[in-house]
């Protein structure tokens, strides 16, 4: 089974701090990691690879620093890694990002595409279904488990708000996975040792069958009109209390209220 996994590099926090002077994100000192849902996707791909004698290729779009993340994924046991990087890709919204990713995917053989449900920096959950649409593939989002595989289909459990559905996805197809599905494996020593010798494929705009009006900030249909921070105005006087007094005050409000 040929499996492609889409992975995004994200800041290792869900609470970015804002520079009060100019309203921009403070990126200094914030470590980059592979997005948690995506790492679970890599884990599921590696399990399927082991069971089917398959091949796992990871694809990411981002600045050249994303190479470090890809080397780390080699350390988990992926076979190939592709970095899509180009200044012309900068500022892409999800529509443009999905154009770029699907154009890249068309260069490789695949039976299954795995994406994380959503990335912790944007939380949109859009790129997986958009890539499936661009490639004309069936999809199952919010996958909580993969229970069975055949050459022509995959049986998965999809997690909805109140229920779980068991579904059969024909292949080729795309799934987006929840981090609850699997704990990603640790790096293994042998693969880490060879990670630095493995070739990293880098693709730019010129390698893809795409027009300029499908990529980057200018082509993106959504625009950020403005960003702003809300000044925190304390809504009530802040009182410093001993734990005992605080407990009494809270209980006074809560007791008998249910």
């Amino acid at each position, binding site marked *: 089974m040929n499996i492609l996994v889409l992975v995004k590099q994200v*800041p290792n926090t*869900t*609470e*970015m701090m*804002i520079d009060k002077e100019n*309203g921009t994100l403070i990126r200094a000192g914030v470590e980059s990691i592979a997005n*948690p849902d995506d790492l679970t996707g890599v884990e599921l791909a590696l399990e399927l690879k082991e069971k089917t004698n398959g091949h796992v290729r990871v694809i990411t779009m981002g600045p050249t620093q994303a190479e470090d993340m890809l080397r780390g994924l080699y350390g988990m046991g992926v076979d190939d890694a592709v970095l899509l990087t180009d200044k012309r890709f900068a500022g892409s919204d*999800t*529509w443009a990002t*999905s154009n770029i990713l699907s154009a890249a995917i068309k260069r490789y053989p695949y039976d299954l595409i795995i994406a994380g449900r*959503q990335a912790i920096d*944007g*939380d949109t*959950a*859009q*790129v997986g*279904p*958009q890539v*499936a*649409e*661009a490639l004309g593939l069936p*999809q199952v*989002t*919010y996958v909580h488990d993969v229970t069975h595989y055949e050459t022509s289909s995959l049986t998965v459990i999809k997690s909805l708000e109140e*229920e*779980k*559905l*068991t*579904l059969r*996805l024909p292949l080729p197809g795309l799934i987006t996975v929840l981090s609850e599905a699997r704990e990603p494996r640790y790096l293994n020593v042998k693969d880490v040792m060879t990670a630095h010798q493995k070739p990293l494929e880098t693709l730019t705009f010129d390698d893809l069958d795409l027009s300029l009006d499908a990529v980057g900030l200018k082509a*993106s*249909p*959504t*625009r*950020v*009109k*403005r*960003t*702003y*921070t*809300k000044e*925190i105005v*304390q*809504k*009530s006087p*802040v*009182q*410093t*209390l*001993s*734990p*005992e007094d*605080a*407990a009494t005050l*809270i*209980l006074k409000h*809560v*007791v008998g*209220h*249910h």
Partner: protein
Amino acid sequence: MTKQTHALWVFIEQRSGLIQPVGKELLSEARRLADTADRPVNVVAVLLGHEMHEAAQSLEAYGPDEILYVDDPRLEHYDVFPYADALTRLIKQYSPTIFLLGGSVIGRDLAPRLSMRLDTGLTADATHLALQEDADTLLLEATRPAFGGNLYATILCPNTLPQMATIRPGVFTEVHTPHTKAQMHVIQFEALEAPKVVFLERKVKQRSAQDIAKANVIFSIGRGAKASLNTAKQVADALGATVASSRALVDEGVMVKDQQVGQTGKTIRPNIYVALGISGAVQHTAGMDKAELIIGVNTDPNAPIFGVSNISIVADAHAVLEAMASQLNAIE
């Protein structure tokens, strides 16, 4: 239906023939938005289903000008292929200006697929909507918290139609507008795309805890009170309250996603929300700032949680929980 008037469409999600609250919430918000505009804006409820005529008619109560109901056996249960196909055909026929969908698991499966098919922009999980009127354009301003912290971004989709956005369940409230009479259109399409994914089995999820969306009193636990999670559960049990948490504890695997409050969790409106050791990033407050009484407990007097707290207590949430437990024991 006229094309000249701007139309604001709302996707009405149904499951097993039951209209889901998020559709009514968005319809109510769409009515409010349309009423703020200087020009006529047509609010249209869009329902896909099978043998749901009465349910379609009942949407009148939430103030749409028109109801588009597509009846087809393939639309009885949600599947992305017939749903995206039906909506694409409707959108090409009527050219709505704006299209709002719920940010449920179904909405988040459908909306991105549709935005790609229509080559238009989609804003994810907006928490505030407004209209911007220019000479002959009507733009949706969709605002959402970005990157946690305190940053908001207002996003437009100025050059492509429809301008799409998803909104999470619970962000807006249902409002009845009794006087309205909506024009009903029942539509049937030839040969909608067939589902490709095969349904095998359905299981209702085991509830691991009480539903935080229905609780009157919530004790919500953040990083600052992680150590006393068990105490919090005991105290909540004794008081008939329900325990919820911030995103941090869910990411760490200490709490389950069902109990997470915030933009990426649930949006709730309890009578009392006690935030224990939660800093209160916008990502979190977006899910609870409409609670009637908010009590914030944090060691940092500048914590953003105090921006939404009716009672602001600087104290160690861990110690406060232990003190509550011993005071309750003393009463018993």
